[in-house]
C-alpha cells in the first residue's frame, strides 16, 4: 500500500500543477483576444455607456491576475460563470453535452475492449503466417488515418451510398436504446477503429515477447492445450501494457472526440469547445478546456499508476 502511495502522491501533485498550468494558459490565451470583449458581446447594441457598464460587471478593467484568481476561485467552488452567447449558466450548458459525450465514449469503449484484445491476440499468435504482413499494414493504416477522414468515408459508404445509418448523430431525438445505438453507430465505429488500431500496435511488442517467453514455451512443453497457454500463462502477463494503452486511449478520446463529434454534428462536449472558441465565449471555453484537460491529465495519470500497480510484486504484498 505504501508503494501505491509513493507512486500516487508525486504524480497527483504534478497533475494538479499541470491542471493549474492549463487554466493559466487558457486564461492567458483568452485574454489575448484582440478587441474589446464588451463591445463584441453587445454587438449592434453597443454604446460606450453600455459597454462600460458591461465591462465593470465582467471585471474587464481589473488587472488580469485579479480576474484570473476571481475566476479560479469561482471555478473551484462550482461557479463556472455565465455563457456570453446563451446567457445561461455555463454549468447548464456543459452538463448535457458532457453526458452525451460520455454516452458516445462508453459505447466506443464497450466495442473497443473485446475487439482490441481479440485482434491483438490474433495478430500476435499468427504473426508468422502469410497474411501477417498485410494485416499489420492494415492496422497501421487504421492508426494513420485521421479520424475525421475515417468518419467521412464511413458516412460516404454507410449513410450516403448505402442508407443504413444516419449521417448526423442527432441524439436528442432518440427515444429508445436500439435507436440510440443505431444513431450513434457510425461515430462509435469511427472512434473504435482509431482506438483499436492504436491499441493493437502498442500491444504487439509486449504480446509477442510474452508469447516467445521462456515460461510460455515451458507451458507448451508441459503439454498444456494452446488455449490454456494463452489464457492463463500469456494474457495475464500482457495485460499490464494493454491496460496502459487503454487508459492512454481514453486520454486520446478527449481530443479525437472533438473531430468525430464535428463530423457527425454530435452535440457533445467537443463540439461545445469548438463552437465556443469560434465565438469566443470565454467562460464556456475556460470551463470546457478545464474539463477536457482534466480528463486528459487524469487519464495519463491513471496510465502511469496502472503500469506501476499491475506489477505482481505489489499485488501479493
Amino acid at each position, binding site marked *: 500500500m505504501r508503494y501505491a502511495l509513493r507512486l500516487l502522491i508525486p504524480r497527483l501533485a504534478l497533475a494538479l500543477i499541470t491542471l493549474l498550468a492549463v487554466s493559466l494558459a487558457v486564461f492567458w490565451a483568452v485574454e489575448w483576444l484582440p478587441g474589446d470583449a464588451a463591445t463584441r458581446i453587445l454587438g449592434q447594441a453597443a454604446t460606450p455607456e453600455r459597454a462600460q457598464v458591461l465591462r465593470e460587471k465582467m471585471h474587464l478593467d481589473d488587472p488580469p491576475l485579479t480576474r484570473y484568481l476571481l475566476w479560479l476561485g469561482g471555478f473551484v467552488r462550482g461557479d463556472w460563470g455565465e455563457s456570453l452567447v446563451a446567457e445561461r449558466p455555463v454549468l447548464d450548458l456543459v452538463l448535457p453535452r458532457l453526458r452525451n459525450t460520455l454516452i458516445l465514449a462508453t459505447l466506443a469503449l464497450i466495442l473497443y475492449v473485446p475487439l482490441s484484445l481479440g485482434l491483438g491476440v490474433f495478430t500476435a499468435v499468427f504473426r508468422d503466417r502469410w497474411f501477417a504482413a498485410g494485416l499489420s499494414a492494415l492496422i497501421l493504416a487504421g492508426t494513420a488515418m485521421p479520424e475525421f477522414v475515417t468518419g467521412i468515408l464511413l458516412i460516404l459508404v454507410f449513410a450516403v451510398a448505402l442508407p443504413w445509418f444516419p449521417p448526423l448523430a442527432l441524439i436528442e431525438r432518440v427515444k429508445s436504446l436500439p435507436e440510440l445505438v443505431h444513431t450513434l453507430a457510425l461515430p462509435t465505429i469511427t472512434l473504435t477503429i482509431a482506438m483499436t488500431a492504436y491499441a493493437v500496435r502498442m500491444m504487439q511488442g509486449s504480446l509477442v515477447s510474452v508469447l516467445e517467453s*521462456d515460461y510460455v514455451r515451458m507451458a507448451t512443453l508441459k*503439454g498444456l492445450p494452446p488455449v490454456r497457454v494463452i489464457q492463463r500463462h500469456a494474457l495475464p502477463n500482457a495485460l499490464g501494457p494493454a491496460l496502459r494503452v487503454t487508459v492512454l486511449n481514453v486520454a486520446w478520446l478527449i481530443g479525437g472526440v472533438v473531430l468525430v463529434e464535428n463530423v457527425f454534428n454530435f452535440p457533445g462536449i467537443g463540439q461545445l469547445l469548438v463552437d465556443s472558441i469560434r465565438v469566443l465565449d470565454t467562460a464556456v471555453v475556460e470551463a470546457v478546456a478545464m474539463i477536457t484537460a482534466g480528463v486528459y491529465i487524469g487519464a495519463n495519470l491513471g496510465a502511469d499508476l496502472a503500469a506501476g500497480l499491475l506489477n505482481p510484486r505489489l499485488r*501479493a504484498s
Partner: protein
Amino acid sequence: MSDNTSANAVVQVEALTVDFWERQAWLNVVNRVSFSIYPGETLGLAGESGCGKSTTGYALFGYRRPGSRFREGAIHFEGRNLLTQSETELRAIRGDKICLVPQNPATTLTPSMRVGQQVVKALEAHHICSGREADERTIDLFAQVGLPQPKAIAKRYPFQLSGGQQQRVVIAMALAGNPTLVVLDEPTTALDVTTQARILKLLARLQAERGMSALYVTHNLGVMAQVADRVAVMYAGELVEVAPTAELFQNPLHPYTRGLIAAVPRLSAPNESKVKLRGLLRREELPQGCRFAPRCPFAQFECFTRPQPLITEGKDHQVACWLWQSVAEKQGVADG
C-alpha cells in the same frame, strides 16, 4: 548396460537433422545425430554453447522453435515417431511421459500464477487427477523435492521464492506425471555451487527411486562426471564421441573431447594444460568433412573433406574420428 539393444531403449534418436532459418537461408544446427537412452540410465549430452545440444534436447518433445525445421530423422518413443506426431498427440506426451527440467526457473515459471496452481493445472490437463486430490498431490511432490512447508510454498508466486526453491518447484513439476524420460537442460547453471550440489543429490535420489531415464544437457563436465552414466559429446551439431562416463574421462579418443577434458581446471595440476582448444566455433566456416578440423591440432587434409561417421571402438565406445588411433599414440593416454 552393454546388454541394452535398441529394442529396449526408452527413446531412440535416429539421424536427427535440424535447420534454423536465419538471414534468409537455412542454417544447419543439428546434423544426423543418433543415440539411444536406456531404461534407468542418465545420458549426458555435452558440448560448448551453440553446439546444438539444447535443440536436440527439445527435439525429444517434438518441439522445434518457430523458424526451424526437422529436415531428416526420426525419434522413436513408445513405438511412435515423435517428429511426425500431431500437436494433439504430442501434448499428451509432453509433461506426462517426457518432462522438462528447464534451465532458468526464474524465467520458466509463469510470473502471474502461484506455483502450486502451476503444478495442479498441469496435473489436471493430463487427467492425472483434479481438485482436492491434485492439491494434495502437489503438496506431496513439493515435500518430496525437499521444500520446507510445502503448503505455504504452494501459495506463493515465483518471485517470492529463492533460486534453489524455484528449481525444486520446477523439478516437482517435471515429476508430477511420473515420466518415463526427463530432459534436463542445464538445470543448475543458474544456481550457486552449494545449492547446485544439493539439487544434484536430489535429482539422483529421485531418479533412483522412480527408475526414470534422463537426458542431461550441459556444458559443465564436472557436473556431467557426477551425474551421467554415459556421455555423448556434440560439436557443431554432430556427435563426436559416445562412451560410458568413466571410460570417456579416462580414455577420451576424439581430439575435441581431449581438449574439453584437458581444459577443465583440476586441483591437482593447476597450471597444466597439455592440449589447448584453439579458436572459436564459427558456423560460417564449417568444412564438408569433419567439422572440428579447423580447430584440430591433428587435422590432415582429408579430414576437411571426408565426413566422419561414428566408429565403434571396443564395447561401448564410439568416436567420429578416423585418426583416433594415431592421435592416441601421439598423445599417450590423456592425463586422467
